[in-house]
């Protein structure tokens, strides 16, 4: 629920107080720890005949998938039967709240019209910005209208407009009641501060993680969507209007990927033995690229899955691409030497960008060969074999990013085909670590260690010249208040503002801060998410601002069975047919 506390001054003053108020007795290290690994290394390039390190979680995953799919089939059949009865009209429809039992702030409305009509949905918000609107794309007589963005614990006003081919519109307003938030969600508090409603990019805020939840909240901090089931952090909210959520192992091990809509209805299930951490990316519209692990190291594998067949098409071990021996945030001999935390498709090419937190490098590489085109990285400790790929900085205001997260390629910014603009979250964990003289003076107590800071930064890379310049940044002045050593996100929104996500640790307690800022550095909107749980820690990672009704989410295909694409050979390995 939104807080009644006015938070007009979250940054910088009150935010500090709020963060300090969130302090509890327990803590969580914000940097990723090396994960125990298994010596058995599956073969690359296909599904391994070797079982993942612990096979029992895989069986539990399969059991759960079976249960979900069976339940969904039962619900779908029931809904279809109800609709076929012909007794439901727009004036007296069938309303089913949370039909699949996993997404409490959704509903479906079923009815039949005499002639084909197009239906529009309006969920009344507490204000204009928080209202949710959508027009379904198909003209039909049997309607299964998904309703998203309801408030918890109240009767929501939902208006349906049904427009026929002649332009005649019939309107029906419904009251749809929802349950109170469950205990897990009620443990979360989101306080917001909307300073410039005129600049706020409309849409809901979708954190990749708010603790273990997939949620969405509006500009007032009210939750408008959540899944009751817990999923891992990696998510793709943009898979043809549906979501890809993951369940299972973080490092090497069994993972199931579910394509779902906001109702929680499953459209397909995929399997991978390589774990899922940080990234699930829709690549060239018809494939998925994931960050995973294989063998004696972790989080240094990129792999590609076909959503159509469930087959793993390609794998790329980044130990064969980047310099394994370079010191970084993790020790050279650490299994988590790279910490691959983002994969980005380079539009119009087969290339991808990869981001390594522990090596502070963003690299453009060919997929799937791994051939390096360039690297944006601090120039320290690179072998001569790699130095030729380093971009050369230009401009007096240039500063490298350290331990960055979530680079994204911006639309063309300058009309120059030779340049690429990228926006990323510069965590800054090792910002001063390579300044040997500074480190010596700190150790000698000659100077005080500089205050760490994180920033949102836009770079312009001249790929032809091999240079990089800083174009824009925000956050240097926020210092330790918004210092986020382990996670973060920076997104360019459609209206030109920038959305930044910070995982801030104060007194060993993690909280989530999301800022929408203008190019001029003005705060448009901000939110602070905290947890009321015993340890006070709130998991966060990235945040996406988008409409909950994206193209593709406006249809609920209850007559289309979910595709179970867990390979037969995998099921057979676990003794399942």
């Amino acid at each position, binding site marked *: 629920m939104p807080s009644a506390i006015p938070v007009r001054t979250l940054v910088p003053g009150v935010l500090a107080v709020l963060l300090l108020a969130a302090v509890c007795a327990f803590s969580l290290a914000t940097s990723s720890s090396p994960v125990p690994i298994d010596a058995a290394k599956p073969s690359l390039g296909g599904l391994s005949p070797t079982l993942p390190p612990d096979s029992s979680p895989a069986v539990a995953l399969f059991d759960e998938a079976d249960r979900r799919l069976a339940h969904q089939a039962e619900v779908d059949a029931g809904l279809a039967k109800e609709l076929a009865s012909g007794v439901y009209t727009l004036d007296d429809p069938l309303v089913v709240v949370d039909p699949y039992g996993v997404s409490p702030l959704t509903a479906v409305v079923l009815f039949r019209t005499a002639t084909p009509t197009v239906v529009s949905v309006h969920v009344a918000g507490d204000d204009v910005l928080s209202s949710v609107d959508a027009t379904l794309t198909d003209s039909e007589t049997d309607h299964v209208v998904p309703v998203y963005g309801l408030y918890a614990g109240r009767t929501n006003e939902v208006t349906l407009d049904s427009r026929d081919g002649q332009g005649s519109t019939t309107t029906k307003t419904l009251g749809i009641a929802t*349950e109170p938030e469950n205990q897990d969600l009620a443990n979360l508090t989101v306080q917001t501060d909307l300073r410039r409603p005129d600049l706020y990019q409309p849409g809901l805020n979708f954190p990749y993680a708010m603790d*273990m939840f997939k949620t969405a909240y509006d500009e007032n901090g009210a939750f408008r969507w959540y899944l009751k089931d817990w999923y891992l952090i990696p998510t793709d909210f943009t898979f043809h209007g549906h979501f890809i959520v993951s369940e299972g192992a973080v490092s090497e091990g069994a993972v199931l990927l579910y394509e779902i809509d906001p109702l929680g209805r499953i459209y397909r299930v995929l399997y991978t033995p390589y774990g899922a951490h940080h990234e699930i990316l829709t690549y060239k519209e018809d494939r998925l690229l994931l960050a995973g692990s294989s063998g004696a190291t972790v989080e240094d594998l990129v792999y590609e899955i076909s959503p159509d067949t469930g087959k793993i098409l390609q794998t790329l071990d980044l130990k064969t691409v980047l310099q394994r021996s370079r010191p970084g945030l993790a020790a050279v001999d650490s299994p988590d030497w790279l910490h691959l935390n983002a994969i980005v498709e380079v539009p119009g090419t087969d290339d991808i960008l990869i981001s390594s937190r522990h090596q502070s490098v963003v690299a453009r590489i060919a997929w799937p060969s791994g051939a390096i085109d360039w690297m944006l990285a601090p120039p320290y400790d690179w072998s001569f074999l790699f130095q030729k790929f380093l971009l050369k900085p230009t401009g007096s205001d240039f500063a490298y990013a350290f331990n960055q997260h979530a680079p994204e390629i911006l639309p063309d910014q300058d009309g120059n085909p030779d340049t690429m603009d990228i926006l990323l979250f510069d965590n800054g964990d090792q910002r001063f670590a390579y300044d040997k003289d500074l480190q010596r003076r700190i150790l000698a107590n000659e100077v005080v260690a500089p205050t760490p800071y994180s920033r949102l930064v836009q770079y312009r890379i001249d790929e032809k010249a091999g240079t990089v310049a800083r174009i824009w940044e925000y956050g240097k002045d926020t210092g330790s208040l918004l210092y986020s050593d382990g996670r973060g996100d920076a997104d360019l929104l459609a209206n030109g503002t920038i959305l930044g996500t910070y995982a801030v640790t104060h007194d060993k307690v993690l909280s989530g801060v999301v800022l929408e800022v203008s190019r001029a550095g003005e705060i448009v909107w901000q939110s602070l998410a905290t947890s009321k749980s015993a340890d006070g820690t709130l*998991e966060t990672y990235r945040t996406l601002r988008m409409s909950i009704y994206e193209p593709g989410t406006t249809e609920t295909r209850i007559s289309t069975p979910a595709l179970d694409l867990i390979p037969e050979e995998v099921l057979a390995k676990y003794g399942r047919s």
Partner: protein
Amino acid sequence: MADRRTSRLAPLRAVLAAALASCAVLASCAAPSATPTPAPDVRTETDWTLTLLSHESADDLSGTKAAVLYDGQKVDTTYAQKPESGNTFLLVEIGVVKNKAGAAAFRWADVRVEDRAGNSWSRMANDTFLENFNFPRVKSTDLTFGTNDGFICFEIPKSAAAGPLYLVHETAAGMTRLALR
């Protein structure tokens, strides 16, 4: 121990809050007194069929759920739920199945537990906590569709829990009264 409950009405749906691969749930009722109904008591109304499967009382509920965090760490989240002093939770496992298309909604405002003296108690306004302890649960919004089976929760005085109780569904069309034996 009150671990995962299995509904006899629809076994496949009995694990609505099932443990995920990334989490394992242990739940316990302090001094629970489970009373499975010898044979499910089934009553067919015009629009809905009610099945009473079991009931039990619990003076408190507690449990932990393990989650995989961002960095692969597994942490336990502890849940606990206690009724007001002198009260107990009465957990009733039921099935509510819609008989026909176009049927009137099944409203929880029409459901109560009552004792012989005529004292009655409504379903708790928010019993979503049942899912923390791995009880499959029937949602508390109006039911309009399908097969709905699982637990619902009432908070009643301990003294009332010791005596005969009845689950009552009363609408303008009539009243159904099921004994919690």
